[in-house]
Each structure stands twice: as C-alpha cells, then as structure tokens.
C-alpha cells in the first residue's frame, strides 16, 4: 500500500511538473526544457536514438526518439534538423506518451449482431476485400470510396492512389487535406501552375517583416513562431498580425490589425490599390514575369448536393486591373472591413517599400474560406506586383496543417482529381501513371468524382456503399457533422476505419483495423517547405496493429490485384518510394534518393545534382529555370505568373437578427486536430481538458454570461453546449464567438456550415451565423 501511495504521489508530482512546462509552452512558443527531456533516462541507459519527423503539424520538426529494450522512452528535438534546430513544442515533446494508451486499437474488430468482436487481422482483411469486391460487382466501381489523410505517409498515400485509381479504376479517393490545404493548392496552381511554396523556412532569417494572415502561429506553428520571435529580438524584424481574433500571436506581435470576417479579400485588393497608386509596382518584374486574368464571379458556395463549377479564365491588361481596383480604395474598404484607412495604408507601405523584405504566412484562416482560392491569389498579387517573391526573405508562404499534407496529399496526390504527377483530366499524366503502375491506360478514369464534402454527401444519399477511412476522424472534423454522422450510420454504406485509437468515426464502423503509429513503421513525410523526411521503424506495434500501406496491399492482393503490388513486407517502404520517385524525375520536382534521406534530417525538393532547391523560380537558386531571365515561373506554359482580378464577395451566411454572431472555429496549442492522440497524453489533456466558447467581454456582459457558464451555441444545422471563456486564451471581436474543434464530447462541427470554395472545394470553418443561450 505504501508503495502505491508513493507512486501516486510521484505521479502527481510529475503531472504537476508537466503542467508547468505546458503552461510555459503556451506563454513562450518554442520553449525547451532540455534537462527534462533527458530526465526519465536511467543513468546507465544505453539508448538508441533514432531520427524522424514529428507526428503532428506541417512544420516538420526533426525529432530524436530514444528507445530501450524495444520501447520508446524519450523524445528530444533533433539539433541537426534545420527546421527546428533542436526545439520542440509541447505536443512534439510528449508525443510518444499516447502510444501506450490503454484503449489503443491492437486487434481488428468486426461488428457482428451490433457488437464488436475481436477478430484475427487476416480474417478482417478478408471481410474488407470481399465486401469491397462484392460492392463493385453489384453497384459498380464508383460505389466504393477511400478517404485518407495528410497524416498518412508517402508510401501509404501512393499505394492508396495506385489501388483506387490504377487497380480498381475509380477516382473515389480524397483526403482530409481537402479540409485544410486545397485552397492553397488551387491558389498555387492558378497563379503559378505549380503547387507548394517557392521559398523555405530560411526566409525567416532574412525577412524584415512577417505579415501573418489569419494565422495564429504562436499556437499552431509554435516552433516557427519562436524562430520569428528570435529574429524580432536579434535583428529587429517586425511581426504584423492580421486576423479576426486577438490571440497569443497578436499579443506577441509588433502590431495587431483586426478585420471583419471575409473582408480580407477587400483589404488585399486595397493593398494592391495603394501599391499601384503610390508607384510601388516593380514594373520591370511585372512586365517580364506576369500576366493579368479574371475569372467567373458569383460562383455560389457549393451548398447544394452535386454542385459543380469550372472557372473560365479570361486575359485582361494592367489598365483593366487598375480600373477594377478603384472599388477598393482604403477609404471604401475601411467602411466594411473595420480596418482603419491608416492600417490599410500601413500594410501597403510595408509591402511597397523596396528596401524591406516581407514574408506573408497563412494557414487555415485563408484556406478555409468560401473564396479560399481567391484570397490565396490576392496575396500572391501583392508579392507579384512588388516583385517580392522567390528570394531569401521575400515571398508568400502557405503553411500546412498536417505532417504530410504536402508530401502525401499534394505530391502523391490523394485527391479525386490528382495523380502522383499531374491530374486525371490530363491524358499525358494518365499515360505516365498507367506506364509506371503497369495498368491499361483506359483503366484510369479521366473525370474527378467526389471531393471530401461531396463524398460524405454521397454516403448520406446512398450513392457510396463502401467507404474506407485511414488516419482521419471525419465525424469530428467534417463541417456539418449533424448531417454526415447519421449518413455514415446508415445501413446502405459499409464502413471500414483504420486507426490507432477508437474515435467517433470508428464508432460507426463495420470493421475497425488496428493501425501502427508512425514510429512503429518506416515511412516518409513531406512538410510545408517541400522537405521530405524519412524514418526507420523504431519500435514494434502492439498486438496485430499494422502499417496502413501493408493493409492496403493485403486487401488489393485478396481482390486479385497482387501483380500490381509485388512489394515485400520487410522492404515495402523502400520499394514503393523508389517506384514513386519515377513520377517526379527531372529538375522541377526531383526527389532525393532514399539513401540520402536516410542520412539527412530531410531534403528539400527539387533535389538536383545532390542539392536542395531552396527558392524555386529564381535562376540564382533553381536549376529548372531555363528562360535566361532572373525569374522563370515555369509551371505556366509561357513562364509567367498570373495576377488575378478577384473581387470581394460576401460569406454565404452572415449574422442576422435570429443568429446574431459569427462562429469561428480552430485549434489550440495543446491538441492536435480532433484530439484522438493528444487527448490521450495526460499532461496535454489536463492542460486543456475540454473545449469552450470564447466571447468578447461586452457580448458576454450583455447576455449575462460569466466564465464557465454553460452556453448553447446553435445554428440552423445543430447545436453544441460548452463552457464560456472570457478574456482567457483568445479574444474574439465583438459579435463573434470562437470554439476549438478538438473535443469529441463537444462537437462544434454539428453547428458549422458545409459551404466551400467552388474552385478548391475546401469548406469554410471560420464563418457561419449562430445564436447563443445561457443554459
């Protein structure tokens, strides 16, 4: 008894210490307690430190995992990684604690007579293959679908794409990166014809100004934010936070500018108006390297099932663009954006100053937007007009949310419209895929089918009769889960869920497959700066938990596609990566050989002649530039980037008399997305045990709401009850409430709207109308 009490006390002391460190991490992004990292290591321990990337966000910090006797016992930042230089955030440091969770999925579970029955994995995979095959036989290949993740490894995404598009012959493959990065992709493709940022994190060491667009980096990308703060302290670099809510990023910045939701479109145009008016345009750059275009306006919002849209770009000239901008003078925009004329001019002057280097950062604020592609285009316009792009310290930089949203979702292409190189609508791209996959060219369909939102609508309608999800939790993360949860519960669809832990999504599954966690398998991730990182398996997975890639291969073989998946269990990661690399051969996207990735803490593509390309499209750094000029935007056939004429348009749903508040949703530093991992890490769970609804103090006062009061937040779609939070973590503007979405017990996505950007098909989680009631 004495022993157990002592242990309990020692446990509480450890929890108390971790709480203090978590609190410190929230206050000082990037803070490191190095001695604590080593503290749990026995003095006589002979740990084997293995390198890899962090399991969480898209920053892609390098970690070192210490293993002893087959167990992961410690994590520390990798000092060799140029991304984080030994730093880790609070999530990164504690990441391995979740894998020992008591409710870990260690065996397959098959639902029989309404109850989950532990089933040998081989038998469960037989059931999955049989069901998938019989569904195709009865209803056609477009009756089956797969929904994967920006947390899947590159080989996992590649095998999923080959299985669905090359073997079965359906484009019913999409992923959760649609919910976070699709607008960035569409923005890059429409402006530059090539996806992913042209710069890299080293921009932080050169920029004079960092302008963050709706991006709470202090909580979402804390290690990068700490690098910015370091530059602020040492070189006097300035951080300007442009957002709809005051956050920890705002308070750590030199200036915080708040705007009315959706009006970032107008403010971006106003900045361009000022740049032209004040003759700050880099004329020679624009004349040599840019075209001007406009597209269709009043596109709608995708609120109805089977909504389709295709833009029709039309060339315009500089004078027409200048004329268009007359509607966006600072004086006009200030009236509805609630940004002062002075602040708009201040922002424009930063970008317009030829002697200052500026990096713009954004993530979900701009991407989860019903005009997400447009706002991405508009920020590129600012950088193109001033020529501040593709140079150290100058450039637009969209940050990713997930660890391999770039590497897997975007580069491998686990979207309905994508292939590992190019898109399904392009015959040349289909022919290349067919050649490498060794399948008949005709088998790869030329038309995209369902993007994420439409895929779950199709499940609800009964059009999709089999769906397999991996490493994702859509019944917490989709918008309007009030529709999609009952849809997934219908008997018309057979649901297979592969995951590491049980989630609300696995709760509706017919078969649950136990997945290995990232250090329990070998793999590769690709981060926000085009850095590909490899790691070797570090520990064994428990029970029958297995790599997702291997489960796909096993099912494909059972369905008769074995000849397309000739990989070995021991070396499949290497074999798959070597096959995948063939898609990107050449100076524009060459990937590093595996032997290089095994040695280095990540390598940036294009990897040409043994060297990473840090700044694309700039002939000083990028060997793919071939036009003889300083810059070459070779993603476009004529080598020129596009400055887009994109107007301000209202959000589909705005506050009114019945629903008087904007609802904004997002994340917190302690939790990773839907919390399925971080809520199983005791110190993180204790630091942030549940969600909450943030109010502006004046709104709270007028409703008689105090901190901790239970409040019902309702929209036309659903409601959610949460405790009120006033003047705590963040401060929304008056007339707005904010709710984090990590808490499966307080499902705020029952309330959100499934409107999306018509071009990127990415939903807007940042704006819908709600009412609040004290309960």
């Amino acid at each position, binding site marked *: 008894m004495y022993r157990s009490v002592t242990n*309990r*006390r020692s446990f509480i*002391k450890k929890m108390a210490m971790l709480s*203090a460190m978590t609190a410190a991490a929230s206050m000082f992004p990037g*803070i490191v307690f*190095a001695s604590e990292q080593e503290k749990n290591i026995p003095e006589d321990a002979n740990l084997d430190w293995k390198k890899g990337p962090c399991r969480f966000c898209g920053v892609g910090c390098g970690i070192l995992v210490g293993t002893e006797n087959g167990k992961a016992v410690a994590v520390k930042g990798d000092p060799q990684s140029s991304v984080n230089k030994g730093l880790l955030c609070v999530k990164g440091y504690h990441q391995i604690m979740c894998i020992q969770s008591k409710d870990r999925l260690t065996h397959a579970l098959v639902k029989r007579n309404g109850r989950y029955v532990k089933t040998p994995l081989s038998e469960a995979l037989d059931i999955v293959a049989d069901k998938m095959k019989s569904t195709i036989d009865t209803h056609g290949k477009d009756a089956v679908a797969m929904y994967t993740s920006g947390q899947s490894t590159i080989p996992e995404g590649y095998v999923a794409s080959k299985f669905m598009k090359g073997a079965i012959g359906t484009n019913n493959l999409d992923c959760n990166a649609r919910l976070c990065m699709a607008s960035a992709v569409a923005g890059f493709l429409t402006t530059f014809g090539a996806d992913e940022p042209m710069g890299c994190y080293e921009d932080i060491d050169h920029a004079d100004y960092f302008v963050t667009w709706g991006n709470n980096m202090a909580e979402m990308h804390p290690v990068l934010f700490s690098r910015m703060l370091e530059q602020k302290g040492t070189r006097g670099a300035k951080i300007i936070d442009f957002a709809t809510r005051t956050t920890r990023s705002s308070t750590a910045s030199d200036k915080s500018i708040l705007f009315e939701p959706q009006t970032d479109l107008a403010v971006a145009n106003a900045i361009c108006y000022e740049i032209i008016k004040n003759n700050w345009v880099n004329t020679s750059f624009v004349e040599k390297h840019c075209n001007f275009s406009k597209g269709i306006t009043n596109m709608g919002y995708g609120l109805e099932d089977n909504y389709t849209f295709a833009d029709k770009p039309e060339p315009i000239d500089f004078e027409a663009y200048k004329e268009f901008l007359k509607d966006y003078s600072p004086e006009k925009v200030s009236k509805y954006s609630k940004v002062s004329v002075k602040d708009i001019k201040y922002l424009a002057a930063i970008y317009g100053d030829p002697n200052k280097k500026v990096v713009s950062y954004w993530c979900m604020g701009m991407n989860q937007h019903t005009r997400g592609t447009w706002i991405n285009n508009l920020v590129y316009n600012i950088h193109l007009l001033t020529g501040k792009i593709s140079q150290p310290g100058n450039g637009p930089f969209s940050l990713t949310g997930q660890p391999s949203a770039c590497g897997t979702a975007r580069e491998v292409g686990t979207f309905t419209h994508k292939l590992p190189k190019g898109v399904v609508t392009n015959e040349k791209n289909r022919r290349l895929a067919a050649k490498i996959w060794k399948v008949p060219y005709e088998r790869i369909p030329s038309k995209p089918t369902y993007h994420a939102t439409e895929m779950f609508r199709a499940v609800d309608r009964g059009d999709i009769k089999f769906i397999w999800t991996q490493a994702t939790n859509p019944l917490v993360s989709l918008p309007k889960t009030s529709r999609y949860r009952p849809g997934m519960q219908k008997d018309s669809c057979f649901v297979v869920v592969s995951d590491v832990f049980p989630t609300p999504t696995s709760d509706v599954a017919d078969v649950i497959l136990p997945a290995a966690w990232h250090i329990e398998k070998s793999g590769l991730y690709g981060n926000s700066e085009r850095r590909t990182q490899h790691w070797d398996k570090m520990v064994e997975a428990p029970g029958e938990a297995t790599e997702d890639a291997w489960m796909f291969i096993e099912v494909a073989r059972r369905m008769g596609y074995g000849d397309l998946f000739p990989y070995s269990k021991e070396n499949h990661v290497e074999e798959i990566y070597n096959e995948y690399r063939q898609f990107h051969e050449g100076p524009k996207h060459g990937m590093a050989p595996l032997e290089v990735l095994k040695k280095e803490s990540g390598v940036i593509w294009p990897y040409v002649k043994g060297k990473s390309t840090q700044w694309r499209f700039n002939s000083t750094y990028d060997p793919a530039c071939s036009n003889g000029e300083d810059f070459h935007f070779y993603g476009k056939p004529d080598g020129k980037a596009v400055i887009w004429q994109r107007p301000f348009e209202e959000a589909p749903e705005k506050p009114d008399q019945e629903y008087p508040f904007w609802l904004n949703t997002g994340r917190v530093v302690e939790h990773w997305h839907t919390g399925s991992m971080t809520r199983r890490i005791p110190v993180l769970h204790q630091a942030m045990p549940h969600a909450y609804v943030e109010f502006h103090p004046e709104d709270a006062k007028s409703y008689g709401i105090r901190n901790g009061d239970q409040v019902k937040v309702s929209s036309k779609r659903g409601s959610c009850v949460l405790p009120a939070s006033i003047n705590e973590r963040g401060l929304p503007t008056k007339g707005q409430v904010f709710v984090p979405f990590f808490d499966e017990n307080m499902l705020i996505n029952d309330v959100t709207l499934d409107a999306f950007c018509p071009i990127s098909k990415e939903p807007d989680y940042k704006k819908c109308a709600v009412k609040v009631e004290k309960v």
Partner: protein
Amino acid sequence: MPIKSYLAHAITGKKTELMHALKSMEQCEVVPAENQDVLALVTDTANEQEDELLKEKIEAIESLKLLSLVSGFNAPQK
C-alpha cells in the same frame, strides 16, 4: 499534502542563481528552460502551513522576478 507547480520567472540573466536558490530548498523540484529565463517548479509540502511558509521563502529570493501558480494538487502522503 499540497503539491503545487509554478513558473518561476528569473530576473534577466539570473536564471542560474535562481535555480541554485530553489534547488537548495528540500521541498522544491526545479527544471530550467533552455532558452528562456523561466523555471518549472514543483513544491511538495506536508500541509497548508508548510506550503505557505515555503512560498514566502521562495518569494523572498532576490533573483526571482515573478512566481506564477500553474496547478495545485492535494495528495495523500502515506
């Protein structure tokens, strides 16, 4: 039997001094941050009175700029 955790903010440049002062107190466990003038501190005392006395002693340390409470637990000692 209180167990409490704090963030102890050191006067600029005096983190090491503060760490030594805290480590000299039997009821304190300290972990310094690598890259900030902050220490994570856990105190373990027998009762409320001892806890109060310890807090007074800590607050009297010259190299301490600010002591902020993070969490408090009350656990059985034996």
